[in-house]
C-alpha cells in the first residue's frame, strides 16, 4: 500500500511535517545550548541541534553535506568540545552565574536581529525555483575538484596549520623535550 502524499486526517504534506519537526528540534536545542546551566548538557544539546541540521540538509538535497555534518560536527567537533569542557571544569569555580551582566541587552539585541533578518528575508523577491533541487555526490565532486581545486588545497593547508597550532598552544610548558 503506497503512502499518501499528505498526512491522513490533517492534509499537510509529509515534507512540511518533517520540516516543522526538524526546525523545532533545531530551535529548541539551540536555545538549550545557550541557556542551560550545566555546560556538558549544553554540549549534548549542541549535538542534537547538529543532527537535526543534518536532516534539514538531506531535505534540501545535499546528502554529501549532511554526511559531512554528521562526521565532522557530531563526530569530531562535538567530541573535541566535550573533551575541552572536561579539561576546564573546576569544582572550586563558582558556576552559579551562567550569564554575564549584559545578558538582558544581549537578549534584546538577538531578538531584534532575528526580527530584522525575518523581515528582510520575507520582503525580498527571491528568484527561486519552485521545488528543491537534488545535487548528487558525483556533480559536487566534479565542481569541487574542477572549479574549487585551489580553495580545496588552501583548506587542506589551513587544517594542517590549525592542527599544528592547536597542539603547540595546548601543549604543557617544558614538555617539549619528551
Amino acid at each position, binding site marked *: 500500500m503506497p503512502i499518501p502524499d499528505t498526512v491522513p486526517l490533517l492534509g499537510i504534506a509529509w515534507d512540511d511535517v518533517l520540516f516543522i519537526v526538524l526546525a523545532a528540534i533545531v530551535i529548541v536545542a539551540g536555545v538549550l545550548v545557550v541557556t542551560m546551566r550545566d*555546560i556538558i548538557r549544553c554540549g549534548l544539546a549542541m549535538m542534537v541541534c547538529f543532527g537535526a541540521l543534518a536532516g534539514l540538509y538531506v531535505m534540501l538535497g*545535499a546528502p554529501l553535506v549532511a554526511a559531512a555534518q554528521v562526521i565532522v560536527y557530531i563526530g569530531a*567537533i562535538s567530541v573535541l568540545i566535550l573533551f575541552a569542557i572536561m579539561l576546564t571544569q573546576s569544582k572550586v569555580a563558582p558556576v552559579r552565574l551562567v550569564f*554575564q551582566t549584559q545578558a538582558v541587552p544581549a537578549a534584546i539585541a538577538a531578538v531584534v536581529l532575528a526580527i530584522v533578518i525575518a523581515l528582510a528575508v520575507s520582503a525580498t523577491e527571491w528568484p527561486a525555483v519552485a521545488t528543491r*533541487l537534488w545535487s548528487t555526490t558525483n556533480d559536487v565532486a566534479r565542481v569541487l575538484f574542477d572549479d574549487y581545486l585551489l580553495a580545496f588545497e588552501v583548506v587542506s593547508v589551513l587544517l594542517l596549520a590549525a592542527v599544528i597550532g592547536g597542539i603547540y598552544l595546548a601543549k604543557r610548558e617544558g614538555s617539549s623535550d619528551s
Partner: protein
Amino acid sequence: MSDSLVAYLILAGVLFSIGTFGFLARRNAISMLMSIELMVNSVNLAIIAFGAFTKELQNDASVIALMVMAVAAAEATVGLAIVIAIYRNRRTPLVDEYDAMRQ
C-alpha cells in the same frame, strides 16, 4: 512550507540570533565557542538553502558548505586550544575573570 526558500532562511536567521545571544551573554569561554559553532551552522544552512532553490548554485553551494565546515573545524581546534592554554594559567574558564590587561 518545506518548498519555500523563505522558511529556511528565517530558520537560519533565528538560529544565528540564538548564537549571537549565547556569544554575548554566556560567561564560559567554551559556551561562547559553542555559540560560534551555532552561528556557523546557521550560515551553512542558508548556503545550502540557496543552493537547493537556485539552479546556478546547485553544486557550488555544497562545495562552499564543505569549505565552511573545514574552516569551522580549524577555528574550533585553535579556539579550544587557546581556552585550554588560558585555563592552565588562570584556573578558570570564565571570560569575565580574564582581566589581566585591566589591572
